[in-house]
């Protein structure tokens, strides 16, 4: 791996506006050379818009970014040679074969002749589709289409690869294959990668650092480990019949508990419900205490015995597993996916 102190991408107050609606609201982040950087956020968060601005597909409304030392507002043509883009949709010519597609996508990066041929064969190997390379893409399975979609972004050997939700609608087998390829490209070729997803498992598995994006804003940015550590030893939601400041203070004093507060958040909607914001959920009739634990097991034991001693009935109890999903929930009060 390359030394991690060289910056390949630096985003500075980047904005995108459609009419009066700002869909990317002045974001800042940077990606180190050799890093896999995750952009995690729900539908409509602004992930694709961000990538589109960085790759020259749409014009930013404000701010800028520097990629490989070139400002995207001034030297986009240089930037384009560094970038590789794997769009969220299958951006291929379905009636043409995989090989023809790849040949074309290599040509528009200035490749030709022997070099082009070698690169095409090489990326076909990377995505393990050499055998089927002459079939029209429209005859491929969903997973194979995804793989060739990735291959098309690799032909010109980009230094910085943007993967926009590359595993949507993919079976577990193809998904694992894609993970492996991504990790191999990063490890063996030192490719820097910006990976967007709304699957936290993927981001946890692949990314060195993650920016959590919601509503066009970055609400947290750190390593996966540090982000999860935001939940401390864990978060426990406790439903009680009655809560006052005195009770909260006593809970805070319990061993293993770091913080206790009354949460204004309504109970999360049922898993099959629509978007949290649009769904009318009946708020729980009981108050909910959010207990941030230094150590969840210790906190839990002490909490329950305390409630027992005080004869305070426990109405509901939920332990939030320490993962990015719950970091997002913790930060926004929303679920990452409905």
């Amino acid at each position, binding site marked *: 791996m390359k030394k991690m102190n060289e910056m390949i991408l630096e985003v500075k107050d980047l904005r995108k506006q459609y009419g009066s609606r700002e869909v990317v609201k002045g974001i800042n982040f940077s990606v180190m050379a050799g890093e896999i950087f995750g952009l995690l956020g729900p539908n409509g968060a602004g992930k694709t818009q961000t990538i*589109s601005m960085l*790759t*020259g*597909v*749409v*014009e930013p409304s404000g701010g800028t970014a520097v990629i490989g030392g070139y400002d995207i507002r001034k030297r986009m*043509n240089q930037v*384009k*040679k560094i*970038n590789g*883009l794997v*769009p*969220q*949709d*299958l*951006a*291929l*010519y*379905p*009636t*043409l074969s995989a090989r*023809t597609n790849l040949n*074309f*996508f290599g*040509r*528009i*990066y*200035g490749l*030709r002749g022997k070099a082009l041929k070698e690169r095409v064969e090489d990326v076909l190997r990377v995505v393990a589709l050499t055998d089927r390379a002459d079939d*029209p893409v429209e005859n491929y399975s969903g997973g194979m289409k995804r793989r060739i979609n990735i291959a*098309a*972004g690799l032909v010109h050997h980009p230094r910085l690869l943007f993967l926009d939700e590359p595993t949507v609608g993919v079976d577990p087998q193809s998904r694992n294959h894609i993970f492996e390829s991504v990790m191999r490209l990063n490890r063996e070729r030192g490719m820097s990668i910006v990976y967007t997803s709304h699957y936290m498992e993927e981001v946890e598995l692949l990314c060195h650092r993650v920016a959590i994006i919601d509503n066009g804003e970055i609400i947290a940015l750190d390593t996966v480990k540090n982000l999860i550590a935001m939940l401390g030893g864990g978060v426990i939601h406790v439903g009680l019949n009655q809560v006052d400041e005195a009770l909260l203070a006593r809970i805070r004093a319990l061993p293993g508990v770091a913080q206790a507060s009354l949460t204004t958040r309504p109970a999360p909607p049922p898993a099959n419900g629509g978007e949290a914001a649009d769904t009318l959920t009946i708020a729980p009739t009981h108050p909910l205490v959010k207990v941030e634990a230094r150590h969840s097991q210790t906190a839990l034991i002490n909490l329950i015995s305390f409630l027992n001693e005080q004869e305070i009935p426990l109405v509901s109890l939920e332990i939030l597993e320490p993962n990015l999903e719950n970091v997002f929930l913790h930060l926004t009060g929303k679920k990452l996916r409905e």
Partner: protein
Amino acid sequence: MDTIRYTLAVAGKELQVMFKDRGALAVLFLLPLLLASLLGTMFQSFGVMGDGEATAVSLDIFLINEDDGPYAAQIVTALETIDALNIERLDSVTEADERIADAQALAAVIIPAGFSQRVDAYEPVQLQVIVDPAQEIAASIVSGILRQVAGEVEVVGEISYGIRAVLAESGALASAPPEMQRAIEAQTLGVIMTQLQEMRQNPVITVRSEELAGAVATEPVNPFGYVVPNFAVMFSFFLVGVISATLLREKEEGSFRRLLAAPLPPAAIIAGKMLAYMLIVVLQVGVLFGVAGAAFDMPLGQSPSGLLLLTLALALAASALGMLLAAVVKTSGQADSLGTIIAFVLAGLGGAIVAFPAGSFMDKVTLFTPHGHALRGFYGLLNDGLGVVDVLPQVGAVAGFAAVFFLAAMWRFKFE
């Protein structure tokens, strides 16, 4: 230098995509070929185009129509518009028999019941003719006319059968909704019927009458020299819908994003696409003219360079109009259907479907379409032996349309 390479790469890809689209190929190549050869043949057998005088003879015939279908009605109309025939409608065959024996008419024509159905089913049809053996020559003329008129009806059946076959064969159009297929079929058939009507009413077309009048027939003009350029010009503009639909489909499917993210200049994207479609127009015209020249002795004129230049201008105009359509409509579906409509309307206004009498109002209207100028150029090159310099005004006019379309397209086109 690089821009040229990028342009060629885009054009190459565009052609590869195009040649996988069998439906579009059938519409662009097979259909005009089929229509031009059928229509040209019909003109040839039906009459001579030229300055021949209309015959002054008048032949009395009876007509008994036992069929109530559309094709029988067409035959009746066709016979009634022929000046040389003086037609009386009768109700029964027996009456006709008696009156012919009585020398009250030369012949009686009977259209049997079920005639239209048979034409529709593409079965052989027969018209019955009762003649007066005493009037041998006149009777043979009547039979001759009838054969042609009936042949014409048969050809219409054949054309609609042919269109259906081409559409079915192409496969890709099978995915088009059936209303769309029927609409295309009906529109094309409509064009043919309009031309047939025109052919009958146009005074320059007369019944072949050498034997009767003993006059020397004027030197026949090869009808293919008109029919083929008409279809060539008309069908080159069918590309308008194809170009814009493929471009919009690329945006919808997302491959356009890859083009935008790549370091090729936007001009190469536009130029590459236009180049590809211009090549297709050149191929279309080449195939049509080549086949018509080889198979039907269509005159090819004296000036290959004139033909090439005019064809290139035509190709530029058609592909620029395609870009313009892509710039103003939102979806590939709209582009497809609007493109077809534009192609028919422009062909109609431009005189590619029906030729307008010289100097008439509609003849002047044709000059507001690229078609009008292109057709004048092609007629001149093919039929009047004009050279490249003679058609420069037409080439310039067509290229002017191309420039206007192109500028308007670039003004409205959004790369995002």
